[in-house]
């Protein structure tokens, strides 16, 4: 309100930016939200790719349906207003019409169900060949992680407060001790909670699983692109619900092996952090040169 002109310009710039980038298809940094974005974050797992393409179909369908209803409404408002049509008809039944608008939606729904169920089963059924298991526990208000197959003891992953942010870290998303997984590895995720219900959600993976005290829920993912991915707790858990983010680094197998070895020695190992930091710096330099 202080600077209405600035606000308006910011609005217009963001709008223009949104639509041009959207049209260009080069939309967003994978793994994090983009300001002014209109759709999903880029998919980096087979599940999320399926979710995205299924949603694209649904979006077209619902847009057509909405425009159809809007078109009908506009038509009757113009054609049958009091000026255009002073004498109303007394027609109040048409069996054929009623059968059609019952049957056509049924057919559309069957059409939706055909891709919907395979996606559901793909998400839910953990592949028989998994590489390792990862356990996430939701706590008020942080996540703790274990790599039971690699004998890494439970470590806690806390959000980095705004005043401690380093360059390149994201407010409300970056954490001190992230998860690290190898690229293309099939990971079984086990989720539980120690106090109230939380939810481990990673938009670019298409993973969202309730962390419920007293039970262990399972999900799986296979990240196919190196990078840093962010997610957030997605079940209201009290005071700091908005401040217990999730950060996953997807790295080459050899980097992961070195990291996990250091982590098995000491779950808060500085050497492990250095391995990831060096790898990330090298990758960023490489990406910068590509640009």
């Amino acid at each position, binding site marked *: 309100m202080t600077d209405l002109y600035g606000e308006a310009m910011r609005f217009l710039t963001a709008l223009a930016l949104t639509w041009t980038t959207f049209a260009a298809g080069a939309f967003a940094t994978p793994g994090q939200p983009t*300001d002014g974005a209109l759709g999903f974050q880029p998919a980096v797992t087979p599940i999320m790719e399926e979710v995205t393409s299924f949603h694209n179909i649904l979006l077209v369908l619902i847009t057509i349906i909405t425009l159809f209803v809007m078109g009908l409404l506009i038509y009757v408002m113009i054609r049958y207003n009091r000026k255009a049509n002073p004498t*109303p008809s007394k027609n109040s039944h048409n069996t054929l019409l009623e059968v059609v608008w*019952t049957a056509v939606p049924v057919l559309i729904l069957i059409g939706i169900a055909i891709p*919907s169920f395979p996606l559901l089963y793909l998400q839910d*059924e953990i592949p028989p060949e998994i590489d390792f298991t990862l356990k996430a526990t939701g706590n008020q208000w942080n996540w703790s992680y274990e790599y039971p197959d690699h004998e890494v003891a439970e470590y806690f992953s806390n959000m980095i407060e705004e005043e401690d942010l380093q360059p390149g870290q994201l407010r409300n998303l970056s954490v001190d001790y992230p998860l690290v997984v190898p690229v293309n590895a099939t990971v079984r995720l086990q989720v539980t909670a120690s106090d*109230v219900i939380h939810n481990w959600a990673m938009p670019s993976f298409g993973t969202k699983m309730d962390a419920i005290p007293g039970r262990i829920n399972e999900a799986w993912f296979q990240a196919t692109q190196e990078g840093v991915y962010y997610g957030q707790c997605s079940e209201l858990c009290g005071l700091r619900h908005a401040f217990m983010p999730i950060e996953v680094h997807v790295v080459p197998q050899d980097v992961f092996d070195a990291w996990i070895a250091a982590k098995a020695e000491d779950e808060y190992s500085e050497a492990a952090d250095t391995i990831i930091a060096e790898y990330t710096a090298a990758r960023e330099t490489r990406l910068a040169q590509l640009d």
Partner: protein
Amino acid sequence: MSADAATHDDHTPSLWDWRRWVLSTNHKDIGTMYLVFAIFAGIIGGGLSGLIRWELMEPGLQVFTGEDTGWGAIFGNAHNYNVVTTMHALIMIFFMVMPAMIGGFGNWFVPLMIGAPDMAFPRMNNISFWLLPASFALALMSMFVPGAGADLGFGGGWVLYPPLSTSGHNGPAMDLLILSLHIAGVSSILGAINFITTIFNMRAPGMTIHKMPLFVWSVLVTVFLLLLSLPVLAGALTMLLTDRNFGTAFFAPEGGGDPVMYQHLFWFFGHPEVYILILPGFGIVSHVVSTFSRKPIFGYLGMAYAMVAIGFIGFIVWAHHMYTVGMPVDLKAYFVAATMVIAVPTGIKIFSWIATMWGGSIEFRTPMMWAIGFIFLFTVGGVTGVVLANAGVDQSLHDTYYVVAHFHYVLSLGAVFAIFAGWYYWFEKIFGVKYNSFLARAQFFFFFIGANVIFFPQHFLGLNGMPRRYVDYPDAFEFWNAVSSWGYVIMLVGMVLFFAVLIDAMIRRRKADANPWGEGATTLEWTLSSPPPFHQFSELPKIK
């Protein structure tokens, strides 16, 4: 005074006699009290949503800073933000929409439309209403007593999921809320019994069940949903209460209980509840569309039984709110299929409204504008519902702003638009005075634009991954949140216009006609004066 003579004739007590209201057994007076109560609750619930949009206008903490200075000193911290979202939901559902639709319009027009002199149990009607202020008082009190530790109020969401609502909130705020919802539930169950008895037994001679106006049908289906679902909520709430205070462990895993069991019980109530909120709106919109198209409603029987079907299916789809709790995949598949079926009767209703307008002679009076707005916006909310029904996609959208956008399209833009359609349709009948239709139409446009600017961008936020119930969000969600908050300002202007219409009508007091809408208005309430006599139909009307 001539006014006294008039009141003496039809035994109308004075407006200023407190016994007329506190001891009221008159369905119209009780209906009016419900409407006034709903407006009052709506101001509070709407004010709370203003705090939410204010906080979310920019990244970072603006309002709920938790600091001892500035706004934080008044509004508190992130816990209080959670309290505000929780209470916004509970107030809008239990103390605004339900009292307005069922208590207000239901009480006023169900007896009038079926040609009955009053409700079947007038004294029970009185207690139904007067339990509500008590319930509301308890809910408001809960905001100002300790909830979690030293933080005031219950901030666990309107769904009250344990363990956050049991071990997560150790203070008395949650207990007050449980008591409040119990009392609101009793009020609704008594009201439901009253409506069912009235509709089944007090229809005028000749009014068979298949000649009943659609609004009466909609209330009949709604109160059956209330009667069957509220006891389940009462059971779940009682188990929460004993888990909290008497050492039981229904929902505590450490004692062999299951938090997910609560969610099943809650949503067995909660899903019918959302149809309770919208079904009377379907009824209202049917009358408005038919009246202003000057045509009988298209496919009356299909419309009536579509509501029955929606009510029935509403009871067997509850777990689509719980796709991420780790249910067996076959169970999820069942709930996907059942949920998508709801689109069919809903589609029948949308198309039948349009077919009613087709071939009609449409007059764009104020209620009709709200009704047409309702049809379009409810369609938008409906199609996103079909998207969310698919558990595979819901995996990505569950608990994001996409869901917030979806249910505000069907409730804030659906149910609320239907309430305003009914308000402006029956205003003159209820109050006996005309209103300024220019101001009322202006209110419609501000609401229509404002609500869309608030809620449409929230689809984008949700798709891009912004979780709901967040006091602060990553910087990349700023743009659409800012747009959304500006939309609130537009809607606020509409709200001011609403009160301007009310005040204008009360000051000018232009006498209303018995039937301001002409030949399209065919139901029995238009055969009476505006306002109707204090007691009507001493001689029952005969329906051909």
